[in-house]
């Protein structure tokens, strides 16, 4: 790599409060890959939770973040798929509807911000895959997992609607699988791979939410997975904290622990467990077999 890749890191709200291990592991992985990360303290919520009730405020939330990064001439990297989806969605709507963009800019002008749309939004996975590249990643991997079967969980809002998200093939995505297989683990096929984790309706319809989670966990387990691999704080909380709650409430008999992708990758890069926050996962993920 000749040029250092630089992003503004968009953490969103869940990660700093509830999934800190995602941040520490992602930062350490990106650090090993010499990616320059800029933190923008003024970032706010992406607006995702507001979409149900107030579309325009949702767009304003996203636009403010985009404008902040744009002001510094930076592209955004997100760790959360819902943040990714929201920022992309808002960007798309403002591109298609200049009235909306003007209205947003009118509000942003109070803070001397302006959104023009001159930036890219990347998810952690897409940044690794397309900006940093498989070959660079390969060089940094020091150990390989043997006989490890991983069920990758995609997370809906990065994948769909595919015409806007442009993340991967919506029917047969490959990016996540290829990244996982770099570590020597096998990304297994499982039928509910592309389904929702259930998080969006937790607190609204818990039975539905947990049923969706349960179906995926059982399906992954049946397909032979040792771990479910996530790359979104909502999905991770659902498969980690909520799964733990389901086990306690006896809604579920067998557990399938979830590991965040940068944790998996970090282990293969030889980053220590402490930094990767392995112990911060609610469901103990035990010892992963690594061979040098």
């Amino acid at each position: 790599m000749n040029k250092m890749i630089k992003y503004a890191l968009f953490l969103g709200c869940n990660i700093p409060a509830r999934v800190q291990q995602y941040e520490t592991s992602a930062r350490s992985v990106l650090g090993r890959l010499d990616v320059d990360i800029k933190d923008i303290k003024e970032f706010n919520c992406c607006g995702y939770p507001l979409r149900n009730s107030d579309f325009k405020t949702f767009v304003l939330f996203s636009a403010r973040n985009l404008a902040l990064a744009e002001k510094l001439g930076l592209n955004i990297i997100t760790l959360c798929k819902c943040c990714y989806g929201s920022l992309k969605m808002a960007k798309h709507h403002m591109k298609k509807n200049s009235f909306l963009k003007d209205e947003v800019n009118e509000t942003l002008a109070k803070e001397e911000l302006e959104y023009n749309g001159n930036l890219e939004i990347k998810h952690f996975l897409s940044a690794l895959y397309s900006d940093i590249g498989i070959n660079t990643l390969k060089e940094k991997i020091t150990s390989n997992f043997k006989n490890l079967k991983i069920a990758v969980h995609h997370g809906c809002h990065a994948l769909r609607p595919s015409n806007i998200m442009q993340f991967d093939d919506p029917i047969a995505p490959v990016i996540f699988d290829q990244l996982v297989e770099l570590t020597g683990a096998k990304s297994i096929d499982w039928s509910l791979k592309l389904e929702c984790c259930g998080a969006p309706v937790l607190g609204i319809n818990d039975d539905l939410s947990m049923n969706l989670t349960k179906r995926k966990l059982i399906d992954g387990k049946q397909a032979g997975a040792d771990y479910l691999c996530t790359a979104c704080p909502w999905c991770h909380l659902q498969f980690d904290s909520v799964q733990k709650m389901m086990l306690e409430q006896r809604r579920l008999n067998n557990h399938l622990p979830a590991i965040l992708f940068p944790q998996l990758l970090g282990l293969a890069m030889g980053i220590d467990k402490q930094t990767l926050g392995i112990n911060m996962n609610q469901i103990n993920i035990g010892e992963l077999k690594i061979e040098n």
Partner: protein
Amino acid sequence: MLFTVIFYTSLFVFLLGLIYKVSTWFSLEIGVASKNFTISERISAAARGILGVIFSPKILILVKVFILDVVLQRRILKEDFLRWIMHMLIFTGFMMLLLMHAFDSFITTPLFDEYYSTLNPFLFLRNFFGIMVLAGLMIAVYRRFILKVPRLRTSPMDYYAIIILTVIMISGILLEGIKITSYTEFRNMVKNYSALDEEEEILALEKLWVKDFGLVSPNVKDPIDPTIIPLSKELHNMHCADCHSSTEWAIIGYPAARLLKPIALRLDRLGCVNAFWYIHFLACFIGLAYLPFSKMFHVIASPVSLLANAVMDKDKSFPANIATRQAMELDACTHCGTCSLTCSVAVAFDKTGNLNILPSEKLVFLKTYASGKDLKKNELKAIQEGIYLCTNCDRCTVVCPVGINLRELWFNVREDLIQKGNPIPLVLSPFSFYRGLNQQKLESDNYSNPISIIKDAIADKCELMKNPDEVISLTPINKKFKEKVDLSYQATTYSCCFSCQNCSTVCPVVGNYENPQEALGLLPHQIMRSVGLGLKDLAFGSKMLWDCVTCYQCQEHCPQGVKVTDILYELKNLAIKESFNNE
């Protein structure tokens, strides 16, 4: 005599206020968490908690936090350098004035044999500390009214704090200035403290004081004959110098004296020394008496909050102590606005104008609410929106300079406020995720009430849903409703739907139920058709709308390019708006 009476009265009011305020820490019930404890349980839990900390290694944490966070105010420094400077100037300056100057008979005199308020270094230091406070006050005014720090709201309490400090400081400076110039003061001093009684000698001394000490005398006119100065100096050294450093060391009082010089004689005759003396002392006494009830109470409550939060833990501390701490934290808040500045959803305030969205203003609300105020319908609606429109990102808790655990406070109060029996639209949004995640900490009996109340309230407005057997007339079509589905440019794609049912087939929510229509009402393809037919009730009234996980499978798989998920989003927006915003 009057002085003593007023002083003891204000001290008495202060102490009563202090006792009252501290007692409210044990009696105020905040949110749902405090309901289970009596006052005596809370007091004894606090005593046990405090003793437990004092006689444990945790005492070291307290010492550390006291030095770093209370004295050096590290948490303010982390957020904003200018604010730290401001607060340090006011805090250190005022504390030093309080100890050295206001309490001189209790502190400075016993400590220093040579203490006279008119002698250096005390004379100089008093002025120096005064300048510190004044400079801090100027920064405070600058930040609030000129720089206009975003989302820093100024309430009457903030005005009061700035005004009372300013009055105390300015009156003190003017008092010193006027005393320097005062001829009456000079004559009194000569009479009481020197053995001089010959008018000639007094005049000689007077001339030196006019020349060098800022005295304004009716007897001395410029220029002063220099031959008399050696005598003047001798007299000064004999009678004054032991207790008087040069007034020029009063680095702010002396300039004030020079400024007042042209009108000094008149002021002296009018008895302004006394007047400023009264203003200065009355302002101090008012400040003291009113302290427990004003923003200034934070000088007591904020350190308590910092220390308590440093050693308390939600899972390990007595729950009764958490309730007490939360009541105390309301007093610790200085309304500094740091939380609102960093709040992840504060932008929503810019859009909706609902002040309760800002954490600093929620706290203002809580102060009145905790004291038992009844809420009007629209006030309740506004605070419910404010308390629920929160991503629980913890940023407010992380930055609070006085260490208030806002995360726990919100969680506790939120539950109380949403259990009032009225429908709250935001409950049907991903803001509910946090509540779902923490449901084991909530009372399971009424956990689902807020959810069913809002779902029922929306369904209740949809007549057609209530009468499934009713024959629907297809004309006239509700065109007004159809036109409203236009928030995003692509919403009108519903008209392309030909009911192939692909969307409903791939929907994981539909797939979750054996009898989806019974569980969900209309399925996605039916909702699309309902919009096309202008059947508002059917489009709004389906549970499907609120159970949609927004996974976009339907939209991705629609052969006609209908933006199914986006249309469901729009319908949710509309249903909320039409059902509640007009009320």
